[in-house]
């Protein structure tokens, strides 16, 4: 049983409202992505993080722009929580020139170095070494930043995770490895093909392993804050397994080619633990006015609509851009 940390966490009201806003922004963004996908407006694969937003929000709420993150194919939430603009996010997902990567990356590869986002990644576990290397930069250059590596429970079975935990441990790198344990590796329940507990996998490397309720934004925030403090003190990496559930499909539109692989009742059960409704209940019980929360919801929905409008108005990149950006030009 995971310890209930949120009741023990006190955060000031404006931060609480900001957390709520971020959660709502990501949910609204992702629901719109689903809608756009159904309309056939989005090229390629899209993976949404509905039900998992609290991990991105809780984590990024204790980071600064100076800190780096790497993300996954299910990375929209991480980007937004790290400060990405929804309009430029949509533009990237639409493959437009005003997207973060000028339409070169798409949904699975959004990067913004100014925000410290080293990239979502289309390869499961692919970003783990990159986050580790960003931690190395901090140590070599004497910086005080940290690096956060988001990965999924599927990536927990990639060997490179163990290589990274070892390296980060021996070099005491300021890296926080956050496993979003959403119960599924693509279409297979994680437990079917995964030995033991993921959070315990760091223990042999001398790295703390912590399990947290990933649907509780305050609990995530608390454990990540502790790990970040530890990293900034030069005490090395932490592995956090944030337990959640993938309410959404692995990839949007999968039912067109796939039989059902999980009972609807499971999904319904997890909807009852929805991180946003739970947090809203908490805010109301703290005495926050419902009208304030409703206003946030309205504002974020409007933001998303404006973002889509911005993206749809953005042109596709010119064909000449196909040949750009393969190599950097020295001194340019």
């Amino acid at each position: 049983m995971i310890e209930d940390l949120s009741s023990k966490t006190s955060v000031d009201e404006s931060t609480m409202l900001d957390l709520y806003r971020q959660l709502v922004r990501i949910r609204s963004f992702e629901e719109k992505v689903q809608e756009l996908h159904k309309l056939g407006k989005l090229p390629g694969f899209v993976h949404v993080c509905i039900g998992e937003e609290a991990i991105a929000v809780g984590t990024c709420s204790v980071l600064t722009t100076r800190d780096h993150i790497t993300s996954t194919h299910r990375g929209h939430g991480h980007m937004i929580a790290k400060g990405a603009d929804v309009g430029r996010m949509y533009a990237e997902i639409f493959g437009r020139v005003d997207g973060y990567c000028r339409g070169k990356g798409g949904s699975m590869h959004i990067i913004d170095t100014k925000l410290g986002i080293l990239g979502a990644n289309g390869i499961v576990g692919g970003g783990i070494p990159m986050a580790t290397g960003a931690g190395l930069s901090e140590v070599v250059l004497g910086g005080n930043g940290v690096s956060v590596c988001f990965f999924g429970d599927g990536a927990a079975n990639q060997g490179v995770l163990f290589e990274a935990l070892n390296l980060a441990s021996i070099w005491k790198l300021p890296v926080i490895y956050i496993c979003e344990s959403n119960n599924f590796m693509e279409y297979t329940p994680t437990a079917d093909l995964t030995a033991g507990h993921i959070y315990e996998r760091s223990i042999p490397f001398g790295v703390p392993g912590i399990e947290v309720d990933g649907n509780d934004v305050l609990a995530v925030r608390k454990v990540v804050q502790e790990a970040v403090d530890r990293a900034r003190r030069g005490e090395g990496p932490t592995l956090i397994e944030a337990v959640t559930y993938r309410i959404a499909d692995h990839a949007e539109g999968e039912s067109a080619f796939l039989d059902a692989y999980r009972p609807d009742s499971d999904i319904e059960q997890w909807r009852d633990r929805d991180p946003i409704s739970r947090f809203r209940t908490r805010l109301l019980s703290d005495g926050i006015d419902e009208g304030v929360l409703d206003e946030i919801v309205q504002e974020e929905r409007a933001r998303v609509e404006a973002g889509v409008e911005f993206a749809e108005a953005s042109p596709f990149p010119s064909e000449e851009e196909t040949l750009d950006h393969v190599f950097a030009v020295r001194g340019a």
Partner: protein
Amino acid sequence: MAKLYFFQAVRRAIEVSMEEDETVIVMGEDVDLGAFGVTSELIGRFGPNRIRKTPISEAVFVGSAVGAAATGLRPFVDVMFSSFFYVAMDQLMNQAARLRYMSGGQVELPIVYFAGTGPSGSTAAQHSENPHALMMHAAGLKVVMPSTPADAFGLMMASIRDPNPVVFLGDLSLTSLRSEVPDEPYEIKLGTADVKRPGEDVTIVAIASTVRTALDLATDLESEGISVEVIDPRTLVPFDWNTVANSVEKTGRLVVADPARRLCGAAGEIIAGINERSWSSLKAAPQRVTWPDVPVPFSPPLEASIEVTKADLEKAVRATL
């Protein structure tokens, strides 16, 4: 001017680069000792913060270099044997070679991936690769493969200063090669071929260790009145098409020597590129001399049998005359 062995020249370039730029770091297995001498004794000079000895975990250190380069460092990564790139292929091909493009040009990745390469005396199929063709195909990796100590120095200086991932392959059969390297630091621009010997009748484009073989042959053929031009491309990506095309337009004949397998190799690519550019100048079908399409064998006579020899090269040259 001092005489340096091939890998000493590489080492000197690293040392000079580390002195001039404190963001240059070294990572790899046993780099405190330096497997081929390229990083030996640097630790005493620059300390363990910049000379990072890694565990035998190619995937994570090849990939960490990407994150480190994206956040302010210039890693020199010693992969040791080029066969070991295959252990880290996701990180090399899907990450290092992709990140700049996928980010729409936001990221510069100044990384040198160095490895000793090619057969070095019965090290067999898992320590003898010449994987340059694979790297050439990546779209996002520069590929450097020099043939002399002086070139190795100048090209390594340029590679470390380059804002892109550079795969720098040091041919292990050049280990005992020792020749003069200018004392003052200099660099050789990536993408500039070198005419190692001028000639009039036939152009040999020779890669890495085959340059010496081609020069030997050119000397032999001179007595017969056959004038051979030997070009060392030095870097395969970017490739200096102009120098090769100008030569072929003069000689009308092309032979490519490549110490690597034939199928989809650099030799085939160079010939195709020259066919496209200089077709009307060609007086004979271009020839290539390569390994056969086999893994590198262990047994000494079998290993020797795949080498690009002077006799193979001579046969190819005569076929164009």
